[in-house]
């Protein structure tokens, strides 16, 4: 039985090609039809494949579809094939499903930007590479997808390429990712060198058989895992390479939602979960993953508190949530990480799309201080955003609550866990709740603080036949002509904030539904749930469950195990209680600061002084990187590589070589005098030399 998995990435690729090559001549409707049809078909096929996969007997898993041999060099073979198991199935459905909704949203959001076809072509291209990454059956093909999504990300961040900051942000993202990719590549080389293959099945098999007793061998797996982690920190925006993600918000908002929140940035988490066979064998690597995840989530959350740009808050929140996923992977609770990845994809995509809708509503403003009171102008956006905020904050009953709680519990109880991880995690959860409700309150509550019926030129005055100048203008795009669902009066200028068109609202609602129900696949046992997702992923990650059980309850008798389980359960309930309390505390504090006593935040900021300034300026990390790495690198490149090696050594040697030949020729020129007797003299001299040589040879 063949699932024809190749269709899933190829369909968006076809869409990208059609729009990319012919889109210029298409109408906007045609472009969106091509893009949506290819993505929808891909989603439908993925759904079909998932259903058929679930019907397969367990011994047939993972399902591998071989298309052909890609590389062959001696014994080393890389195949071109697709690999579907429960892990890639979840990823595939998230990517195609959320991706499709964001495509629908983009039709409304990008309606009046220039380069409409270009946008959708890039978006489809991203889908192709992401699906290649997720469905690859070997690391090399995964790396192709890995680089490809980086390319798509670069293209889309710099989509408004006439704006300097956008072009720079694109470059920054690409370069930061390159640093990570370098680590990943070295890890692949090590795999090839020591295991002679890059096929998942072979590698996991060989790693499992790999003797752990040999010191160098254990070091090898640690090295591979840590290098892979370097790659993951680049792609998934973790310390120390997270700096690109906040800047990536220069891209159009649907891009932020799709690439920089829901899918691409989770590639690192996916990669770690996929390589769990390697990571689980190295305690050191796991500890590093957990520490990086934990610190990233904590610091990003503190920065998130102080930001005022609505998209930047969400960007730091994304970094923070990715930190949670890394923490989960670091305590060997990969399924918890994937669970959070999935729920995060729903609610963070929703938050970004909601933020896009808000930005749309207020005519391109991104500063939350100039928003407010939007509840009555954009009710759909408000309610869906409320759901997403509750979900990410960990309000019980919503998806984020279950997944985040699972991670916190695992961080505490897993054999690789530690109470310090839990403590940092719970503090982060509090901050998450606080800054998310801060965003919500600043945006939707109180009174509207933006300019009303001022400064926004009407879109009649500035025709919305999207030209390059509209593209240049970025988010200050013209208002779409469709009558918004709630207030049909808005036709003239950008007087009052208004609700977005249907194409944007429907995905919001669908994602809101997913954000609510997404968590119920993983209700923990302590809450009388089945924790389906853990069992679901168990075939992919057999070692962890077995190992975790083995270490946690090592050698215990069945009855002891039961009492242990009961204890665990009550402890888990207690910890859950704490996280719920923390979530509500964050909500309450945000309410106090941003609705009741709005003078308080400024006072507190003043009293904190330097600390507040440091956090507001993102701990000056960009400046530190600039001074410590980028500055010296530029100085070195300028002084040594350019002026020293290029200008002096290379150019110098070539130029002085030419100069020398010129001078030699200049002096030899005089020998050609036209005087027959001097020529004859040379001939004679030459003949004399030949004779001398012959005589010398003869006498030897």
């Amino acid at each position, binding site marked *: 039985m063949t699932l024809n998995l190749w269709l899933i990435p190829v369909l968006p690729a076809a869409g990208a090609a059609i729009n990319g090559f012919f889109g210029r001549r298409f109408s906007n409707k045609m472009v969106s039809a091509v893009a949506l049809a290819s993505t929808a078909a891909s989603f439908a096929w993925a759904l079909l494949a998932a259903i058929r996969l679930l019907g397969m007997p367990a011994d047939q898993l993972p399902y591998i579809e071989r298309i052909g041999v890609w590389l062959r060099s001696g014994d080393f073979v890389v195949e071109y094939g697709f690999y579907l198991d429960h892990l890639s199935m979840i990823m595939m459905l998230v990517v195609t499903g959320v991706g499709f909704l964001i495509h629908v949203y983009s039709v409304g959001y990008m309606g009046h930007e220039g380069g409409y076809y270009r946008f959708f072509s890039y978006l489809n291209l991203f889908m192709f590479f992401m699906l290649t990454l997720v469905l690859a059956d070997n690391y090399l093909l995964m790396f192709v997808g890995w680089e490809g999504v980086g390319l798509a990300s670069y293209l889309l961040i710099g989509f408004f390429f006439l704006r300097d900051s956008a072009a720079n942000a694109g470059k920054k993202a690409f370069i930061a990712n390159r640093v990570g990719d370098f680590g990943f590549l070295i890890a692949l080389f090590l795999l090839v060198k020591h295991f002679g293959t890059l096929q998942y099945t072979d590698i996991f098999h060989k790693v499992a058989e790999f003797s752990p007793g040999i010191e160098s061998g254990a070091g090898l797996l640690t090295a591979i895992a840590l290098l892979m982690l370097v790659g993951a920190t680049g792609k998934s925006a973790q310390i120390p390479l997270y700096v690109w993600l906040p800047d990536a918000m220069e891209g159009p908002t649907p891009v932020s939602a799709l690439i920089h929140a829901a899918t691409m940035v989770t590639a690192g988490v996916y990669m770690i979960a996929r390589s769990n066979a390697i990571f689980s064998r190295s305690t050191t690597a796991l500890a590093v993953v957990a520490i990086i995840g934990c610190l990233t989530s904590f610091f990003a959350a503190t920065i998130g508190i102080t930001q005022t740009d609505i998209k930047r808050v969400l960007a730091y929140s994304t970094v923070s949530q990715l930190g949670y996923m890394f923490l989960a992977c670091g305590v060997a609770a990969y399924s918890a990480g994937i669970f959070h990845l999935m729920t995060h994809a729903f609610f963070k995509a929703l938050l970004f799309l909601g933020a896009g809708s808000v930005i749309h509503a207020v005519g391109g403003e991104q500063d939350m201080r100039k928003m407010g009171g939007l509840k009555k102008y954009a009710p759909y956006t408000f309610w869906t955003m409320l759901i997403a905020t509750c979900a990410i904050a960990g309000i019980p009953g919503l998806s984020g609550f279950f997944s985040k709680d699972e991670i916190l519990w695992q961080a505490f109880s897993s054999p690789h866990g530690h109470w310090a991880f839990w403590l940092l995690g719970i503090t982060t959860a509090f901050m998450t709740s606080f800054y998310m409700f801060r965003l919500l309150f600043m945006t939707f509550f109180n009174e509207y603080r933006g300019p009303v019926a001022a400064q926004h030129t009407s879109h009649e005055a500035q025709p919305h036949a999207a030209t390059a100048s509209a593209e240049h203008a970025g988010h200050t795009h013209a208002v779409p002509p469709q009558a918004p669902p709630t207030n049909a009066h808005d036709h003239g200028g950008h007087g009052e904030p208004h609700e977005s068109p249907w194409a944007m609202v429907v995905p919001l609602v669908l994602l809101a539904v997913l954000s609510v129900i997404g968590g119920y696949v993983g209700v923990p046992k302590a809450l009388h749930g089945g924790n389906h997702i853990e069992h679901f992923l168990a075939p992919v990650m057999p070692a962890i469950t077995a190992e975790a059980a083995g270490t946690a309850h090592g050698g215990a008798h069945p009855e002891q195990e039961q009492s242990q389980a009961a204890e665990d359960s009550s402890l888990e309930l207690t910890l859950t209680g704490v996280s719920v309390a923390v979530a509500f505390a964050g909500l309450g504090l945000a309410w106090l600061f941003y609705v009741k006593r709005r003078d308080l935040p400024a006072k507190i900021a003043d009293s904190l002084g330097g600390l507040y300034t440091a956090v507001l300026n993102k701990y000056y990390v960009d400046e530190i990187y600039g001074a410590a790495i980028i500055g010296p690198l530029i100085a070195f490149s300028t002084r040594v590589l350019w002026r020293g090696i290029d200008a002096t050594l290379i150019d110098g040697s070539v130029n002085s070589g030419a100069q020398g030949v010129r001078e030699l020729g200049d002096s030899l020129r005089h020998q050609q*005098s036209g005087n027959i*007797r001097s020529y*004859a003299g040379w001939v004679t001299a030459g003949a004399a030399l030949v004779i001398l040589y012959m005589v010398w040879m003869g006498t030897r």
Partner: protein
Amino acid sequence: MVPISYYLVLSAILFACGVAGFLIKRNIITIFMSIELMLNAVNLTFVTFAAQWQALSGYIFVFFVMVVAAAEAAVGFAIIIAVFRTRETLNVDRVNLLKL
């Protein structure tokens, strides 16, 4: 019998005189004569070796050289006369119209 080396040394001396005359002299007729001297030095070598090896081809070659030299002299003097008529000099250094 005179040793062969005497002939060869004499030939070398004659040839060297020819070379020296060619290099030093400016009069085109003297140069011409120097060339003839060199040719005849070579002729001497030819007959020397022909006598040594009892090889007839050596003698025949000498006749060839003489014929060519005669032809050369005819053409050469014609040129020299033409040069003298136009330039009114026999100094080669002053026959330099083609020089930059």
